[in-house]
């Protein structure tokens, strides 16, 4: 999903940067508030960022005969809500743009928009929806991570199709072209990301029950309307 440096026309690059900036600023505020109010979260925040670091470095082969990588943003979005992932995702993208010539500074806004904003929000929405209908935690986590991953690549396809509409078939023709490169390749990888996120969540359930209850991922025994754990309900 990394649009390479200089590969978006200046107007598009600026527009995506403007669109992403408020989300990242809001995310930085949420992150500092979370760390100030719950210093014990810092470790798990670090682990969520680390998960994104690992997964976005893993280039995996796919059924289309090309390689791509997962995003790892679903986990953090489910644990800490999407605004935090706008920051952690941006840090990952900056690392890759500056050191790996992967993505770029001019395309950072567009890449942040797909991987650090739309992906986490879409995944989080699906996760919350499934949880509302009492779908088991791990099933909801799987689909949350799956959607966070796949939606990121769909957004990238739209961004490129907007910037480079096909001369004969227009926006839709280009969308089909970029979609077949990105979105189709991504389907099995999104399944992998869903499974890996489930593994990490299972390990967290084993090791960090208290933390997950505070974040509202695990419900307290009294159930949804528990009053002695107001935070679990507020989330």
């Amino acid at each position, binding site marked *: 999903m990394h*649009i390479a*440096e200089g590969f978006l026309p200046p107007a598009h690059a600026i527009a995506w940067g403007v669109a992403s900036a408020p989300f990242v600023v809001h995310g930085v505020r949420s992150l500092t508030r979370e760390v100030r109010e719950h210093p014990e979260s810092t470790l798990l925040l670090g682990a969520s960022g680390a998960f994104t*670091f690992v997964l976005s470095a893993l280039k995996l082969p796919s059924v289309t005969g*090309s390689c791509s990588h997962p995003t790892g943003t679903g986990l953090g979005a489910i644990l800490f809500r999407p605004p935090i992932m706008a920051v952690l995702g941006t840090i990952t993208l900056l690392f890759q743009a500056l050191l790996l010539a992967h993505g770029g500074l001019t395309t950072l806004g567009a890449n942040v928009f797909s991987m650090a904003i739309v992906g986490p929000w879409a995944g989080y929405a699906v996760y919350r929806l499934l949880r509302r209908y009492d779908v088991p935690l791990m099933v909801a986590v799987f689909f949350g991570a799956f959607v966070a991953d796949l939606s990121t690549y769909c957004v990238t396809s739209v961004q490129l199709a907007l910037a*480079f509409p096909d001369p004969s078939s227009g926006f839709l023709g280009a969308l089909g072209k970029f979609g077949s490169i990105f979105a189709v390749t991504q389907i099995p*990888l999104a399944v992998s990301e869903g*499974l890996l996120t489930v593994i990490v969540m299972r390990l967290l359930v084993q090791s960090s029950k208290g933390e997950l209850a505070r974040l509202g991922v695990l419900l307290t025994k009294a159930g949804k309307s528990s009053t002695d754990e107001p935070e679990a309900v507020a989330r």
Partner: protein
Amino acid sequence: MSRNAKINALLLLAVAALAVLPLVLGLGDHKEEPFAGADAEAETAITEIEPDYEPWFSPLYEPPSGEIESALFALQAAIGAGVLAYYFGLRRGRRQGEERTAAALRGAPGED
């Protein structure tokens, strides 16, 4: 192996299978350059749609070779994996410590 560990191992196996199957089945054989990066394919598609397009900015730093690039990717994965391992190791150690303290408190006070 506990039931939990077995389920995790099966999940990992599924991930590995998803990664290996495209290679084993030769799904990249129809391509000039099998299993190239999707990002690079998108760049090619852009130049197909708009042959005159010139990237107007180039990376500030570019790894001088494929080896350096893969080293930096490995570094990225290693940093992430290291932090994750630290987190889970710390949690496990803390939990064991708490259990041991609780057991010691329950046991005879003179026991050392």
